[in-house]
């Protein structure tokens, strides 16, 4: 999603949000990620005025008052956390672990293929199709990407070929490199 993203060219505008819109976004996020619970108040404080950065290709990014990118989404899809946010609170997304060999591919922006999730170095948490997941790696502590499952984990194991998780955001992509928005 952010492979070709460039903060100088891909941003079309920054909007201040009405408090009612802000409220509904908060509740949507909480609905998607119940584990965020009390931490949401720190991540997106109720009283904080956050902004939406509108970008090309129907991408929207939520920025808090300090200018940090917190969540993003594509079209009207689910809000997904940025990796910097997820690194701080790694527990609120189901984690899928790829094996060592898959790391370089994920870091180059490739989608996650089923075999990379089923080999001995890999490990999955059971989730249905279209779930937002954190991509972890064998032998590493921190997430390297955020993705959306294109198959249920059961099917990933069964089919074991083709794309299993769509790579939405990864270390060093355009979103990762974006500077705080003032």
């Amino acid at each position: 999603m952010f492979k070709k993203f460039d903060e100088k060219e891909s941003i079309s505008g920054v909007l201040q949000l009405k408090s009612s819109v802000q409220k509904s976004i908060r509740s949507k996020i909480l609905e998607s990620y119940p584990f965020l619970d009390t931490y949401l108040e720190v991540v997106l404080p109720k009283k904080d005025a956050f902004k939406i950065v509108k970008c090309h290709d129907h991408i929207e990014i939520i920025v808090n008052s300090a200018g940090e990118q917190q969540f993003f989404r594509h079209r009207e899809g689910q809000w997904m956390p940025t990796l910097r946010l997820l690194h701080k609170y790694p527990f609120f997304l189901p984690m899928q672990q790829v094996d060592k060999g898959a790391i370089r591919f994920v870091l180059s922006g490739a989608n996650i293929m089923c075999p990379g999730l089923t080999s001995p170095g890999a490990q999955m948490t059971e989730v249905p199709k279209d779930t937002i997941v954190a991509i972890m790696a064998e032998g590493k502590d921190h997430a390297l990407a955020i993705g959306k499952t294109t198959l249920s984990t059961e099917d990933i194991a069964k089919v074991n070929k083709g794309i299993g998780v769509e790579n939405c955001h990864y270390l060093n992509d355009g979103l990762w490199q974006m500077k705080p928005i003032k």
Partner: protein
Amino acid sequence: MAQENKLKTGPRESVNYPVQVVYCGNCTMPIEYCEYYPEYEKCKQWLEKNLPREFEKVKIGDGSDSPAGDEEKKRQKRGGKGIIKTKKKEEGPKQVCVSRAPRGKKKSVTVVTGLSTFEIDLKVAAKFFGQRFACGSSVTGEDEIVIQGDVKDDLFDVIPEKWPEIDEDLIEDLGDQKR
């Protein structure tokens, strides 16, 4: 099993959130991923300078079961190249340029470019100039600030004073712009 625990969703009791992840000053990724960065050597240099303790660990990890060797075997099974792009390089050398441009018949403005090559926030800089010279000052381009007044000569003192990383020698005087 410890492995199983690692992927469990939900906060851990033993951890204080937010987790403070150490990011590399060269590749910006968590330092555990530096080994995958094309300019790993530069990451190592950064580590050695800034986090000597982590650097020692890396050296130990470079032993027989290095991830690169391990990966070489696995790589052959996979299609594609998996090329990781390096960050875009900052364009050109770090330098600030100042010039004078005419405004109306008698007045001039001062144009400052290049501040962002020093990673300076242009909006903050524009505001600072406005306050310092008591005149209008605004960001007018990607890396351009226009100060409404002829303050070019003062800038050679004011800029290094405000941003010590910009030496007076790094400020280029472009003179007067023609109309």
